């Protein structure tokens, strides 16, 4: 998580989604959610994924993050072919390479902010002291060093989401995926979260893929991708925002 100057030369694509098809079968009905979709995301990019409800945004995000597998096609992240990994290899891969931010924060309610952030670190061989350093660093980045011992119930929505972000960056992953991270927040807290994501992208070079319905949120991204009826409809470089 150390801050270095951005390198001037173009980076190779971090994410390659190649002709991905995703179908769900319910009883006898087959629902094709993604139909031969391809997408590349450069390392260090900040992509906003928009589209109507039910268009397959979450589905696509899950495929990229290795939570789900495509019916056909390939998903590569870095050098890893995510779509071909075994269940347990994927779990290990996710814990190392991906940070997750959800709309409803999804913190563990019985754990304190500190313990929530420590959770993914428990899966690493780090010692207790090393984990403490990582947790404290992550919480200081999101500005919640003074709330370590608070449980989710004692935090506001915006603070909960910041803890969730701290949890996502604690293991220092290359990729952050966020599914409507501001969807449940008021404008002010949402803005804080977006500023934080921008900073993680800028300062810490996290590649971010964010699903959002909010044009204001999308405007913070460097790139906007529109998904409709299972296909990528638009792919526009957002003008005049950071990148």
């Amino acid at each position: 998580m150390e801050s270095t100057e951005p390198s001037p030369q173009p980076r190779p694509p971090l994410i390659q989604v190649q002709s991905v098809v995703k179908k769900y079968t319910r009883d006898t009905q087959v629902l094709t959610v993604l139909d031969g979709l391809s997408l590349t995301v450069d390392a260090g990019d900040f992509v906003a994924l928009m589209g109507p409800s039910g268009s397959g945004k979450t589905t696509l995000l899950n495929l990229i993050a290795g939570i789900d597998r495509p019916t056909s096609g390939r998903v590569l992240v870095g050098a890893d072919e995510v779509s071909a990994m075994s269940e347990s290899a994927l779990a290990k891969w996710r814990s190392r390479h991906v940070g997750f931010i959800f709309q409803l924060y999804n913190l563990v309610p019985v754990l304190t902010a500190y313990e929530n952030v420590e959770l993914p670190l428990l899966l690493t061989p780090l010692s207790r002291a090393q984990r403490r350093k990582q947790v404290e660093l992550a919480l200081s980045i999101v500005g919640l060093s003074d709330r370590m011992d608070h449980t989710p119930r004692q935090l506001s929505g915006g603070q909960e989401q910041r803890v969730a972000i701290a949890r996502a960056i604690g293991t220092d992953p290359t990729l952050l995926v966020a599914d409507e991270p501001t969807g449940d927040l008021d404008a002010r807290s949402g803005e804080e979260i977006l500023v934080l994501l921008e900073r993680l992208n800028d300062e810490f070079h996290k590649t971010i893929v964010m699903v959002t319905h909010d044009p204001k949120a999308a405007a913070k991204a460097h790139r906007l991708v529109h998904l409709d009826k299972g296909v990528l409809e638009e792919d526009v470089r957002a003008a005049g925002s950071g990148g």
Partner: protein
Amino acid sequence: MIRFLPLVLKNVFRKKTRSVLTIASILLPLFVICILGTLLAALDADPSGGKGMFRLTVRHRISITNFLPEAYLPKIRQLPGVKEVTVMNWFGGKYVDNSAKNFFARFAIDPEPFLRVFDEATVVEGSTAEWMNDRSGLMVGQVLMGKYGWRLGQQITLKGDIFPGIYTFTIRAVFKGADESGVYFDRRVLEEAVPRFKGLVGLFWIKCDSVQTVERLPKEIDAMFENSPYPTKTETEKEFQNSWVSMLGNVRLLITSITTIIVLVILLIAANTMAMSARERVTEIAVLRTLGFQRGTILGLVLGESVLLSLFGGFLGVALFVLSFPGFKQGMLSSPMGGFAAGMRLFPGILALGFGITLLVGLLSGLVPAIRSAQRPIADGLRQVG
């Protein structure tokens, strides 16, 4: 896995009321299981400290209420392997009244041989000499002394029914080691009071020199009196005692069935709790797996939670039993079951059984929710609202 313990512990007490109720519903049945198990074990226990395996009893084949002639005594005594024989006549009768709480064993015996047959009995108050020198001397088990608060030298009046009359005895000796809830006196007292009973014997109690003799003698003795008007039934002390127990109905089967049902009920309760708490946490578990928790880890977390929950209840139940045991035993000793209660102690096997049952309940109740949680696809879990 140890680093996940705090998480598991916090999950156990996530819903405090529910956890406390579940723990209570394991605790109380487990307490009952410990009591029942201890009773059952006490039936099997050998208060003679192993000496009982050298002893045989001889009674009339028809029933315990039919008498045998005293003439059998020398015949049995001269058999090879027989070390000692005493007559034991069941006095019956009543002390104060016929209520169950005033029931205890009263035997008319031959003092000298009696002490040699039951040589594990040791006199703790008074002396055997004083007892034997006083024809109406009474030897009393320590437990019974305690129950009534009797003193050495105190006079005890028993009213006879099988042997009509009122008999007053003086406590001359207090013993421990054998059946401590009974009283013993010289059978000549009865013969003098009711001459028609002279020469009649309810039971012969034999001490053998070896286990081989114990195996050989019953057939030999029963064959010896086979064709007489008083055929015998010879059995080991254990068999004899157990035949009393089976007279109480099939206690063993009853206790075992009750225990099994209790175990099944707490299993259902615990399983219900675990199923509920796993259902409430579908999203949370999906999030953990998203973060990289393996299926096996999730399985372990849910199972660990159910085992811990169950063990909490089990531990408290066993602890409650251990703490209340002295009082419970005291209460049992003063009841008509006093004879069995004498063999009651904190059997390590029963306490272990208690923990074993708890562990089993924990594992079984958590198994289905744990497998379900671990198997559900992450994407499905994340979609679930709640």
